[in-house]
């Protein structure tokens, strides 16, 4: 229980205990509610994400997918007027407990955004920066190369590592952003519609990446695109008006939905 505690006699206990076995799920939300002022955007959502699997969150626009996702690594705190209730358990610790350090939570739960947002730095620095501030002890060249290889970008950029990241195409930038996240060797990757700003070819590339990435990371992906959810995910959750309506294996959810609302959505009757 002291994993995240900043005050645990200066020792970073979390680093020592990363590994399977502590709890069944890599990440677990219990009665999670998020409020924008008085508006409840996420309503008492309970969900557990399995290790090394891809879980998709689908639902109509405005149903609270992004808000829920951002609640998992405490990103909502950066918006003023947001209040979170309930629990998000990571290694058995509720990340919202008072003495848990948000910086540390985010460091282990990486995030990829809808629009590629590389830093105004070189390609190399984009990847090395996060590792450097987080005290990476290994060889940086190796880290950069490995990370870029994991996202199949190495061959495209290995000759221009010192060039600005803005010189890359949109799809390349997004892969760079994924590489940037995996360079920290996180446990969980949160992805908020990572392909919605990309062309079909770049989208395909990233989708095929996910299969590789899930060997190392637990992935939670928000998507608008149901085909995409079907292609890439092992499990799928359907959200509507802030509630988690249904959550099960992707196949079951798509072909055998239990809830009529899910069925309506999947058959394209609304949303």
């Amino acid at each position: 229980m002291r994993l995240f505690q900043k005050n645990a006699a200066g020792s970073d206990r979390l680093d020592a205990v990363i590994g399977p076995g502590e709890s069944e799920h890599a990440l677990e939300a219990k009665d999670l509610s998020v409020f924008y002022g008085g508006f409840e955007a996420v309503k008492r959502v309970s969900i557990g994400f399995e290790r090394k699997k891809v879980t998709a969150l689908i639902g109509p626009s405005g149903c609270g997918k992004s808000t829920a996702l951002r609640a998992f690594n405490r990103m909502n705190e950066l918006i003023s007027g947001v209040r979170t209730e309930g629990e998000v358990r990571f290694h058995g610790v509720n990340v919202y407990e008072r003495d848990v350090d948000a910086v540390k939570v985010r460091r282990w739960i990486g995030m990829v955004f809808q629009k590629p947002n590389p830093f105004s730095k070189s390609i190399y620095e984009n990847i090395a920066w996060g590792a450097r501030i987080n005290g990476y002890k290994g060889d940086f060249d190796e880290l950069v190369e490995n990370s870029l290889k994991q996202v199949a970008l190495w061959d495209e950029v290995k000759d221009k590592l010192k060039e600005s990241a803005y010189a890359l195409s949109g799809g390349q930038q997004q892969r760079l952003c994924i590489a940037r996240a995996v360079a920290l060797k996180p446990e969980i990757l949160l992805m908020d519609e990572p392909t919605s700003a990309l062309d079909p070819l770049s989208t395909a590339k990233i989708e095929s990446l996910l299969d590789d990435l899930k060997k190392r990371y637990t992935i939670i992906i928000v998507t608008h695109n149901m085909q995409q959810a079907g292609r890439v995910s092992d499990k799928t959750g359907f959200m509507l008006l802030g509630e988690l309506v249904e959550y099960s294996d992707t196949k079951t959810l798509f072909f055998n939905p239990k809830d009529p609302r899910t069925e309506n959505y999947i058959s394209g009757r609304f949303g």
Partner: protein
Amino acid sequence: MSGSEDFAANLASRHARGDRWRLMFMLSTMLAIVFLGALILTIVDDAFGYVVMVDEVDQRSLVPDGQRLEGAGAETLRAIIDEGLSPRRYRALEREKPFDERSGADLYDIVLYEIVKPQVAETYTLFESLFERKRIVEETTRAHPDGELIFRSWASMRFLSTSLTARPLTTGVLTAVKGSLLTISITILFSFPIGIAAAIWLEEYASDSRLNRFIQVNIYNLAGVPSIIYGMLGLAIFVRGLEGFTSGSAFGASAAGEVANGRTVLSAGLTLALLILPVIIINAQEAIRAVSGSLRQSSLAVGATKWQTIWHHVLPASFDRILTGAVLAVSRAIGETAPLVVVGASTFLTQDPSGVFSKFTTLPIQIYQWTSRPQAEFRHVAAAAIIVLLALMLSLNAFAIITRNRLRKQKRFG
């Protein structure tokens, strides 16, 4: 998963560094505010405090035993004057105004300043006066046994209502206040209409042609020209080039015995008008731009001409903002010093400025003059003048805010 052992546990030190820098950022902000506080405190500190007065001629030697100079009768005073004043000075004062016609208070002033001649031997600041009284009294009794310790408000009603004199004890800011007000009136008279008209043209009429873009860029550039350059412009154009006009000789006006050349209130006001014109235009443009397009359209739709639309709808809707912007510009003009020195502000005026063709001085000019004097007394006079200047600027801003709020109310209910 092997991630963790590759990374050093550095969070504690990172947070510590974060806290340290947060403090630094806060301190820089505090520093700016502390400076403002220090500025105000210094001014107040200098504007009040003890002075040690030593009379050049002992007052008691002038009046019979047991009497005091203050409250002495007119005859006594005349007698002292007849006896003590040099014949030349006597004639000069008599010429100014015959002694027989002078009031008792007037005679008392003459005795005091022409014969007794009180001198400031030492001055103290307000905080010294408040907290170190004992030391001051000791010092005074030791160094100036004949001296008198008085608490003096350098900034006082008397200071405000007295014209300029050469002596720190008797001088006042009335001359400079009049000069400032006259100058600023000229500035407002020219810069407001021209500035607002230019803004209307740029926002409502001008097309996106190259010429108009050039005008716009030019205005932005003018706003960044150092004020002293405007002074050079004013000197060459208004003081010298248009001397006949700005000195008033073209209108047959020559203020009683004054030869002002072109170095007049008018030149000063016009120079400042050019100086603040770009700021007024830019602010007014923003105000006009903020008026919604639908207001214009509905007016045009009922058949109003373009000018009618502007006059009856756009201007009233934006006037509160235009006014606020313009007043900000004017309060900058009130504080301007450098261009007016260049245009030829008079360093010493024996007569208050009375019209646009008078020689001029202004509050900031006097502050500049007094600050650059080496004598400590003038520093206190400068502080007092600064209080007057800041009060003037403050009341101008207050006036603008009140007017703006009144206009807004009218807009809402009218």
